[in-house]
């Protein structure tokens, strides 16, 4: 099957049916390896066992931005190339991205309370991620407000691209402003500052969460294709009845 064939919703749904079992197996395997690595990882010399929250907090924080990046690419697909599956991809990514962002915020708070002495502080990193979460909710609300998927897709694409301005703000907030949140310790010039014994399980957990996102996203896109097919058939039925 050529890649261009996947632009066809029917063929895309068939493709998802074929790859989903393999993706689920890969996701479960990656989580099993990642959690085993998390269990074996040593305690931090300062934070003790609390550092184990990092193995779920950091992948969710990465994915909160990555998913918005995926939605931004899909938004370009909607506005520029009018790709038939672009708005389907954007719509289905939003709830998953919101869930990852929610987890990044909650696990960050649960990590912050014993380490910082507070669940929340209005510093640049935490506030910009909260703004990202609110933007996810706004997008979901927009999709639910407009009944016509094509019109909703265009409006959501514009909002998504405007919201993408927040991504570099989140990434560099710890460098631009004085924040309670620590600066980057993995993706930084000069290499990671985390010991390999913690970096490896963190990387495996990041892969596991990314595979989870891909599996959920593809499954949700297949569902959306079916939903639009049902909508079309119901409209056809209404036309015949009229």
């Amino acid at each position, binding site marked *: 099957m050529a890649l261009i064939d996947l632009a066809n919703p029917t063929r895309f749904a068939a493709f998802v049916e074929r790859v989903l079992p393999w993706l689920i197996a890969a996701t479960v395997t990656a989580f099993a390896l990642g959690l085993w690595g998390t269990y074996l990882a040593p305690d931090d010399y300062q934070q*003790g066992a*609390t550092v184990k*929250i990092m193995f779920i907090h950091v992948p969710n924080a990465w994915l909160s931005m990555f998913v918005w990046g995926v939605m931004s690419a899909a938004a370009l697909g909607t506005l520029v190339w009018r790709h038939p599956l672009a708005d389907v991809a954007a719509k289905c990514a939003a709830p998953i991205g919101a869930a990852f962002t929610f987890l990044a915020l*909650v696990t960050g708070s649960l990590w912050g309370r*014993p380490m910082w002495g507070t669940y929340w502080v209005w510093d640049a990193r935490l506030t910009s991620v909260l703004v990202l979460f609110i933007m996810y909710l706004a997008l979901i609300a927009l999709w639910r407000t407009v009944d016509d998927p094509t019109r909703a897709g265009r409006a959501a694409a514009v909002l998504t691209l405007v919201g993408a301005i927040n991504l570099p703000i989140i990434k560099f907030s710890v460098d631009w402003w004085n924040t309670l949140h620590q600066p980057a310790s993995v993706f930084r010039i000069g290499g990671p500052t985390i010991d390999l014994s913690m970096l490896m399980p963190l990387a495996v957990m990041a892969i596991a969460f990314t595979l989870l996102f891909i599996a959920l996203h593809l*499954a949700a896109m297949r569902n959306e294709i079916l939903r639009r097919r049902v909508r079309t058939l119901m409209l*056809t039925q209404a036309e015949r009845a009229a």
Partner: protein
Amino acid sequence: MDLGPHAGFIVGAYIIATAVIAGLVVWVTADYAAQKRALTELERRGITRRSAESRPLQIKEPA
């Protein structure tokens, strides 16, 4: 495994993450079942895609 004095925060974080991921999986699975059920019901009533009768493939899903 000794999680130290902050075990509640660590276990809580993992429980919440598990619950949210389980919620996503249930949402996607239930939605798939609902759409398949709706399609089956429409087909049972004789409502099928006109395109499916004449053309097996469609470039763009009608909005």
